[in-house]
C-alpha cells in the first residue's frame, strides 16, 4: 500500500470560489446594474443627469467603499465568465488545457490587475 504523505493539491477550489462569488453577485444585482448604467444613467431616466457627470463618477471612484464595490463587481464578473468559458471550451475540446487556461483565467487575472491599478491611480 502506498501512503502519500503530501497529497497533490488542486488549484480548482480557488477558481470555483471566485466563480461562485461572481455568479451570486451578478445573479442578485446584475440586472439592476445593467438597467442603471446601461439605460438610466446615460439617458437620465429616473436619476438626475449629473449622476453620470465626470465629477460625480470620480467622487464615487475616490470613495473607499465605491472603490471596493467597483473592484468587486468588475473583477468577480470577469472571474465568473472566465470559469464558465473555460469549462465550456474544455467540453467543446477547443484547444489544449494550458492554452484555454491562459485565454480565460489569464485574461481575468490580467483585467483584475488592470482594474486594481486604475483604482489606485485614480487615488482617494
Amino acid at each position: 500500500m502506498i501512503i502519500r504523505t503530501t497529497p497533490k493539491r488542486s488549484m480548482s477550489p480557488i477558481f470555483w470560489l471566485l466563480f461562485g462569488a461572481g455568479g451570486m453577485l451578478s445573479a442578485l444585482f446584475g440586472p439592476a446594474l445593467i438597467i442603471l448604467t446601461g439605460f438610466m444613467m446615460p439617458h437620465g431616466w429616473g436619476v438626475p443627469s449629473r449622476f453620470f457627470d465626470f465629477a460625480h463618477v470620480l467622487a464615487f471612484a475616490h470613495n473607499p467603499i465605491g472603490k471596493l464595490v467597483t473592484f468587486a463587481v468588475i473583477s468577480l464578473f470577469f472571474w465568473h465568465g472566465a470559469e464558465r468559458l473555460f469549462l465550456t471550451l474544455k467540453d467543446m475540446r477547443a484547444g489544449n488545457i494550458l492554452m484555454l487556461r491562459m485565454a480565460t483565467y489569464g485574461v481575468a487575472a490580467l483585467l483584475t490587475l488592470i482594474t486594481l491599478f486604475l483604482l489606485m491611480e485614480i487615488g482617494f
Partner: protein
Amino acid sequence: MSERKPFHRTQPRYWWAHKPYLAYTVRELSGVAVALYGAVLLAGLICLWRGPEAFDRYRQVLASPWSSLVHLLLLVAMIWHVVTWFQTMPKTMPKLILHGRQVSQQRLTAIGWLSAFVCSAVFLAVVVVTGVLS
C-alpha cells in the same frame, strides 16, 4: 490471437449546438455575458482614469442606440443567468434540512429568484430615492 476492439461512442464535433446540450451551452454563455458587462464597466473606468474628455466620449457611446441594443442583449443574458443560476444552485449545495424535513429544490430555486428580484428592485429604488433627495 484475439484483437481488442473497444467500443468508442462517437461524439459529433458540434454536439454542444444540438439539443439537449444546447440548453447547457446557452446557460454557460449567459455567464460569459456577465464578464462582457464587466468589460463595459472596465471601459468606463479606463475613460474615467484618462480624464473628463475621454469620459465624455464614454457617455456619448453609452447614450447611442447601439449601446442600448447591446445593453438590452446583455440584460436578456443576465436575466437568463439569474434564472439558471438559481435552478442549478440547489443541485450544487448540500441538502438543506429544516425542522427535520428536507427543503425541496423547487422551493430553494423560488427563494433564489425572489431574493434576486428583491435585491435588484431595492438597489434601484435606493438609487432613485437618493437622486430625488439629493
